[in-house]
């Protein structure tokens, strides 16, 4: 059972790495920001499986923290460096 799970972790980690390569290469920063979201799904799945394999039950709490904060990097990207941008009249979509 453990061997199967750790093989699954390895597989998902490989998918995560491939996804990262694809995203970080991406033409502009909009693509790169997806990397944080990739951690929010594949990273959390890796963490959950890892916790089960290594018998580290508290890994679930780490995953909970990551899931809770998964949106933050993207929000920071969307809001950008508010002050300077707003002054230039180049606020982002969410800014009025």
């Amino acid at each position, binding site marked *: 059972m453990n061997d199967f799970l750790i093989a699954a972790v390895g597989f998902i980690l490989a998918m995560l790495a491939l996804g990262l390569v694809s995203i970080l290469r991406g033409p502009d920063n909009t693509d790169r920001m997806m990397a944080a979201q990739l951690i929010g799904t594949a990273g959390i799945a890796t963490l959950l499986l890892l916790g089960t394999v290594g018998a580290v039950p508290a890994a679930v709490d780490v995953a909970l923290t990551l899931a809770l904060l998964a949106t933050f990097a993207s929000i920071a990207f*969307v809001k950008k460096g508010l002050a300077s941008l707003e002054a230039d009249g180049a606020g982002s979509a969410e800014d009025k």
Partner: protein
Amino acid sequence: MSLARDMITIIAVSAGAFFFLAGTVGLLRFPDTLTRLHALTKADNLGLGLVVVGLLPQAASLREGLKLISIWLLGLLAGATVSQLIARTARQSERAK
């Protein structure tokens, strides 16, 4: 009983891994930002959900199980929000070009 549980785990985690594969293939193959965003936030969230379902039979207690489920719900919320936010920004920067 333990065998049945392990079977559920193996099947669900394998299915989850498949959806992660699908999401990554989408990231690698899709041409533009919006379609890649779609692959990332939909397929990968389904993969996460299936992994959670697979780990539920292995959870030590009810509390652990509830935590797992809430992680998935938070992941869904994050996926939905992030795709909205990034897609809007992507469309805006496309218009600006």
